[in-house]
């Protein structure tokens, strides 16, 4: 919201500099985003008159001018060719500063002294709209000016105002107007607030009822509709001060009638519309819902198709405006307009918002209605518009005003106690100060029988509870008076993380100690993940939740696994010529349980993805990390050959707990790497952290360490290539019985002597009993049994 200091001065006396006022406004909750002072931008530039123009002795394209700047005659060299003797021009003197930050210094041009510069409109930051002739290529000619020579150009241009750009929070729609801000300024400066001038006399021979009738068919969307009329209109430019103010806050002045509607919107916060009476067919304004499919061409020349929940302002034949959003092409003010009907209405906030959003059509008016316009604004805005008509002398005001209004909700007093206010804030504020602050904000506050009773003014719909009153008091009392306390009156609580939360930290710590770097990737990915990962049509992982309004196609679906993101991360590092990397990320995956598109929230699972490439990495280095994690939580999983489609079919395992998969580990399928433009071998593992938490063995039971010595034996057998280590160990453990404590494969060996398609597997076994020292015969018997079972089940031959 842009306001100017001079405009604010219409309503409140301001006797401090703009910067100081801005600081005070910030202190009460109005962020001042920018202070724009045009004077600051132009320094030491004055109005001058060209006395003579002579040729430069050494340059064809330069001329030497003698310029009268009031106090002296300056010699200035210029290359411009649109000047003549007697012209009034802006003169940048020695040491001057221009809006683009340039400073002008005395100097010599081709050997001739030049004591400054003549400025173009552009150099002064002006456009044709700001000053006639400013758009011309060459020096700005200001021959219409009557100010004495040597006058500061800021004064010539009327740069006497400072603009504040103020951020208004969503709870204060009343402050999206100059008058609303003035109310806060008055409170902050402890000065009285003057009401806008709304006095006028109806001088037209007609009354508004002679010109127009109003019917509100849908009062749920149109809470109030006021109309007034102006006859005998003379369309002309608005007075200079109005044009200046509109320009200062970024609006283009059009003509007196259009400017009045814009000025009232900015000043009072009431969106207005001016209909040319010739466009109101049948002399009747009807506020009604649009017919489904009804069309309108708006002021911006575009055609929109309306739907039945949108409000239009129509006449007996056609819609003339999308209510509160934009007027129709056919209803605007024209050069020959002689009679106007002003609309000052209150449309339902959510309806305007929905309509504007679904048409993709926004305007200052719709923005204002969406924020909320209270019931007091319509009469104020309308009266102000009519007062301006009278002030401009641009028409005759018809008698009477039409006002069709739904019942205005009565303001309920907020009843609380001063103690409650102090209790919310934690500090005691003197009751008189409380009342003073509230009254300075035009809140009708009184203390009665220990109760604080507050009635807020019409424009303050945001005040509802004691907390709101406490906020009004503290923002004026000062937040710097709030002193920190540590919940002295609260009860002590036991905080900390849950076991599952600590487990997640522990898993991350394991990954870090394995040399892995944690990454952070978006939860949304490209839908191409399904084809890149070679997921079959019926794969559950294909069923990703789609974002209705994504930022782009490649960020449009919620990931169902973390593999795709990790592959992206690894490949981007490969592309950056990083020879090796180990990375991990713990994040949610989103698994819809019902139909797509989703009607209910999907299941969110926490996964960890591990990924690595580079020298020394292979299936087993990655499996090692997965094992460390599972072992750290006592989660005993079986590694079963995996069919995960994006993994190498010969080098991938599922981590099975019973018949439930806790995750997988494997080399990425070469076709997937190729799709990601990667020629390196990549190894990944993805584990379901929720399942690790679920299967975690938390109970530790003490077991005494056996007094009897273990016996160690090694065994080497030759088996077919397709016999797995897990098969061998299972057979060994099965036959070994209860004294078999540990069995591990420590070598796998292939050679021509062993034979094609065969391998020698060496197993280390540890036997021990808790109650006796094992005898050699007992071990020998077990070993025989083991060999027999290996032969029997797996066709193994003792080496």
């Amino acid at each position, binding site marked *: 919201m842009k306001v100017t200091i001079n405009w604010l001065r219409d309503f409140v006396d301001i006797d401090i500099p703009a910067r100081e006022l801005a600081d005070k406004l910030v202190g009460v909750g109005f962020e001042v985003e920018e202070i724009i002072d045009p004077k600051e931008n132009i320094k030491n530039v004055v109005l001058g008159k060209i006395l003579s123009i002579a040729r430069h002795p050494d340059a064809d394209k330069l001329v030497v001018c003698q310029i009268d700047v009031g106090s002296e005659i300056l010699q200035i060299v210029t290359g411009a060719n649109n000047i003549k003797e007697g012209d009034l021009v802006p003169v940048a003197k020695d040491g001057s500063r221009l809006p683009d930050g340039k400073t002008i210094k005395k100097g010599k041009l081709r050997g001739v002294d030049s004591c400054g510069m003549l400025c173009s409109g552009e150099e002064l930051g002006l456009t044709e709209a700001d000053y006639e002739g400013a758009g011309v290529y060459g020096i700005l000619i200001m021959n219409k000016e009557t100010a004495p020579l040597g006058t500061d150009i800021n004064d010539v241009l009327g740069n006497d105002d400072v603009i504040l750009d103020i951020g208004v929070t969503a709870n204060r729609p009343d402050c999206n107007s100059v008058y609303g801000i003035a109310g806060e300024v008055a409170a902050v400066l402890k000065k009285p607030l003057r009401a806008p001038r709304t006095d006028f006399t109806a001088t037209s021979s007609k009354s508004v009822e002679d010109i127009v009738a109003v019917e509100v068919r849908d009062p749920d969307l149109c809470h109030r509709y006021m109309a007034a009329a102006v006859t005998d209109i003379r369309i002309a430019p608005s007075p200079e001060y109005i044009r200046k103010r509109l320009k200062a806050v970024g609006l283009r002045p059009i003509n007196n009638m259009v400017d009045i509607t814009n000025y009232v919107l900015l000043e009072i916060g009431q969106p207005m519309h001016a209909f040319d009476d010739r466009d109101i067919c049948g002399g009747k304004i009807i506020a009604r819902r649009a017919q489904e499919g009804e069309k309108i061409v708006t002021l911006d020349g575009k055609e929109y198709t309306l739907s039945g929940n949108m409000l239009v302002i129509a006449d007996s034949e056609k819609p003339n405006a999308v209510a509160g959003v934009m007027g129709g092409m056919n209803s605007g003010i024209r050069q020959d307009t002689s009679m106007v009907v002003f609309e000052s209405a209150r449309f339902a906030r959510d309806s305007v918002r929905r309509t504007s959003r679904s048409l993709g059509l926004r305007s200052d008016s719709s923005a204002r209605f969406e924020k909320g316009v209270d019931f007091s604004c319509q009469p104020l805005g309308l009266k102000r518009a009519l007062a301006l008509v009278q002030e401009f002398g641009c028409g005759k005001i018809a008698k009477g005003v039409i006002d069709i209004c739904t019942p205005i909700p009565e303001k309920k007093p907020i009843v609380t106690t001063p103690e409650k206010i102090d209790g919310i804030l*934690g500090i005691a504020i003197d009751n008189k100060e409380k009342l003073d602050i509230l009254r300075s904000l035009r809140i009708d506050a009184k203390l009665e029988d220990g109760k604080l009773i507050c009635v807020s003014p019409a424009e303050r719909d945001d005040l509802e509870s004691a907390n709101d009153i406490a906020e009004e008091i503290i923002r004026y009392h000062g937040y710097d008076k709030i002193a920190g306390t540590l919940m002295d009156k609260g009860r002590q609580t036991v905080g900390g993380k849950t076991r599952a939360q600590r487990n997640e930290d522990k898993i991350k710590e394991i990954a870090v100690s394995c040399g892995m770097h944690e990454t952070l990737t978006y939860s949304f990915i490209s839908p191409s993940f399904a084809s890149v990962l070679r997921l079959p049509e019926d794969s559950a992982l294909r069923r990703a939740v789609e974002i209705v309004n994504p930022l782009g196609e490649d*960020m449009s679906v919620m990931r169902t696994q973390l593999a795709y993101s990790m592959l992206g991360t690894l490949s981007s590092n490969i592309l950056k010529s990083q020879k090796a990397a180990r990375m991990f990320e713990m994040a949610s995956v989103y698994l819809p349980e019902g139909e797509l598109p989703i009607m209910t929230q999907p299941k969110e699972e926490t996964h960890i993805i591990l990924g690595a490439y580079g020298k020394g990495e292979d299936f087993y280095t990655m499996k090692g990390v997965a094992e460390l994690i599972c072992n750290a939580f006592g989660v005993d999983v079986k590694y079963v050959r995996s069919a995960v489609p994006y993994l190498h079919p010969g080098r991938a395992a599922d981590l099975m707990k019973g018949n439930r998969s806790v995750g997988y580990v494997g080399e990425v399928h070469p076709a997937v790497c190729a799709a990601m433009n990667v020629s390196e071998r990549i190894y990944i593992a993805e584990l379901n952290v929720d399942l690790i938490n679920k299967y975690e063995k938390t109970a530790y039971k003490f077991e005494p360490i056996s007094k009897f010595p273990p016996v160690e034996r090694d065994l080497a057998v030759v088996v077919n290539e397709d016999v797995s280590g897990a098969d061998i160990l299972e057979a060994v453990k099965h036959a070994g019985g209860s004294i078999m404590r540990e069995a591990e494969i420590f070598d796998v060996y292939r050679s021509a002597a062993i034979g094609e398609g065969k391998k020698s597997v060496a197993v280390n076994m540890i036997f021990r009993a808790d109650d006796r020292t094992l005898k050699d015969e007992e071990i020998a018997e077990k070993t025989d049994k083991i060999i027999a079972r290996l032969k029997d089940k797996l066709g193994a031959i003792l080496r």
Partner: protein
Amino acid sequence: MAVKEKIEEIISAAAEGVKACGSLDEINSLKVRILGKSGELTALLRGMKDYPAQERPAVGKLVNEARDKINALIDEKTACLQASREEEKLQSEKIDVTLKGSATPRGSLHPCTLVKDEIVSIFTSLGFSVAHGPEIETDYYNFRQLNIPKDHPARDMQDTFYLGNDILLRTHTSPVQAHVMEECKPPIRVVCPGKVYRPDDDATHSPMFQQIEGLVIDENITLCDLKGILECFAKELFDKNTKVRFRPSYFPFTEPSVEVDLSCSVCHGKGCRICKGTGWIEVLGAGVVNPHVLEMSHIDPEKYSGFAFGMGIERIAMIKYGIPDMRILFENDVRFLRAFK
């Protein structure tokens, strides 16, 4: 006494011999030569029978004394030679101690995780527990339950990714507050870290970022308590001189609402690039929980009050580590990540 002289001679020869020995082998053979079965001293003992009976004890004593003496000399020399042999061996095993150790180099946690963990641990030590909630939320929990009705202008403060009718990616971690208030009874002290989503993408905004939200509900909780807790937090996270400043603001679920500035930890209020010359950095939004929100969560606003605060983790990581562009945090360049050990 020829015997005595002879013994003296053997001793002095032995002493000479020991002195001359340069290795353990030499000293062993010397020991055998003198004290061995056919050694010189042993020979004397063997010749004892040639001496008159009354002299034999004295001779025997002399011989034994000599043996002890020689043994001592030999032992001493042996120990000495052993020590130097040990030393030689150690010297020969000398290695270059400046070469790199061979453990797996440690990986790293993401800077955002480091910041999040630090913040969480500050609050858990103040008696806060940690809660998580779904990232895919309902319109009800993300907005309505937090006093942001449909078509309310406050929704413009947070553009939203939608996934379906009334289902969306949460735009803040505040819905976790709402879940906690429904599920737990006061006293409540909880922090809720997590990912949140808004359709913005530039140097200071990411469509996915992380927030941490705090909530306290109990009897007699005030705005002063909010300030005290945040002061505690700011001093722990930055340094003990960090100051906290409140500025009035607006959030639909708190009333009064404040923006919270911390004095700049880089320039200590003098003004620098990080704080854009103001000496303050805007880090948190906070406020007293709106009684309306308590009511909607079935907590009696007449009895209980509380405060809530929220901050962006990426933003704090950027301030703490001097990272100029938020997108760097999501690039996952291993050279960047490696620095955060």
